């Protein structure tokens, strides 16, 4: 991953990407994709092998148990033969027991070797999985980078062909300020209009001119009360 990131940064410092050119060239990309495929294949092959070995180990386990069971059964037979004084028969059974035990020992040895292979193969699978994830991440960075470069190159071409759509940051800021001023004006105008509609504006003007409708009404009532005292 570090090598890919470094390649991208080096290329960018050199200004390679001004025209939206691929930073890690198509060849590099194909190599990465090939590595991804190879890793994927290795992984699936290793998993296949692993599954086969594990099945074999399980089968060996069953065979070992079967030999051990047979040996145990024969031991009982041999004891009975000895109890019955049939020494020759007991010897014959004992030979069989030796056979079962030998096979069990051989199978166990095979299984131990098999388990070592399984352990190392599991290791390989894990490594391949990590490698695959690494390649995928790298490829994603490379592809995203190229996409961004191509996209921005396309936007630039487009903007340059119709100058009006995006100018300098200063022009943009000017337009933002104009819009913000317009919005402020609209808000002020809205507030003024609301005042006029509710008559609040007129009341304010009257008050400012020393004409206070509310105060006048109170004064009128007081004068009326004074004119006509209660009967």
């Amino acid at each position, binding site marked *: 991953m570090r090598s890919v990131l470094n390649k991208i940064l080096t290329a960018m410092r050199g200004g390679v990407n001004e025209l939206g050119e691929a930073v890690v060239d198509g060849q590099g990309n194909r190599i990465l994709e090939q590595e991804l495929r190879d890793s994927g294949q290795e992984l699936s092959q290793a998993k296949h092998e692993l599954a086969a070995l594990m099945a074999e180990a399980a089968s060996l386990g069953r065979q070992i148990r079967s030999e051990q069971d047979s040996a145990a059964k024969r031991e009982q037979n041999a004891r009975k033969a000895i109890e019955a004084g049939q020494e020759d028969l007991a010897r014959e059974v004992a030979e069989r027991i030796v056979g079962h035990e030998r096979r069990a020992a051989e199978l166990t040895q095979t299984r131990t070797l098999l388990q070592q292979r399984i352990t190392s193969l599991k290791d390989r699978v894990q490594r391949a999985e990590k490698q695959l994830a690494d390649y995928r991440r790298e490829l994603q960075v490379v*592809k995203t980078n190229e996409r961004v*470069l191509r996209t921005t*190159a*396309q*936007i630039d071409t*487009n903007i340059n062909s119709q100058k009006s*759509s995006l100018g*300098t*940051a200063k022009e943009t*800021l000017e337009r933002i300020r104009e819009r913000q001023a317009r919005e402020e004006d609209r808000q002020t105008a809205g507030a003024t209009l609301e005042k006029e509609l509710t008559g609040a504006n007129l009341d304010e003007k009257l008050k400012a001119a020393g004409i206070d409708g509310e105060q006048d009404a109170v004064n009128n009532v007081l004068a009326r009360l004074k004119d006509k005292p209660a009967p």
Partner: protein
Amino acid sequence: MDIQTLILALSESTHAGRNFDVMPIAGKEPVLQVTVSGADETPVYVTVTDTQILCLVYLFDEQELNPERLHELHENMLRISVPMPLSSLGKTGGHYVVYGALSPTSGEAEIMQELVTLAENAIDLLQTFEDYLA
């Protein structure tokens, strides 16, 4: 979410009181220019890839900046990038950009939220960094 679905979704929807004006950018890559109402000055460019939906707004070009204060500007951009909602600051070619990346499985609401936030963030950033322009 592909670009066609996005065009249809954006042209017919409003989000948080905003409309979206969508215009495909001519060329090989599927790129949209989305203008968010109320933030018309900072159009958002959207491109959809297998791994992400990338939305970006151009802030300024390197030639527009005061070279003596470049280091200070970079420092401030890095610092402000972390707390800024949904957007990060970056540079592509000579352009300084503010951008956001979404999962391709994002729904319309998330994309619209991103577009509105990005366009508004771009305006705030331009006004914040105005002093660094040459």
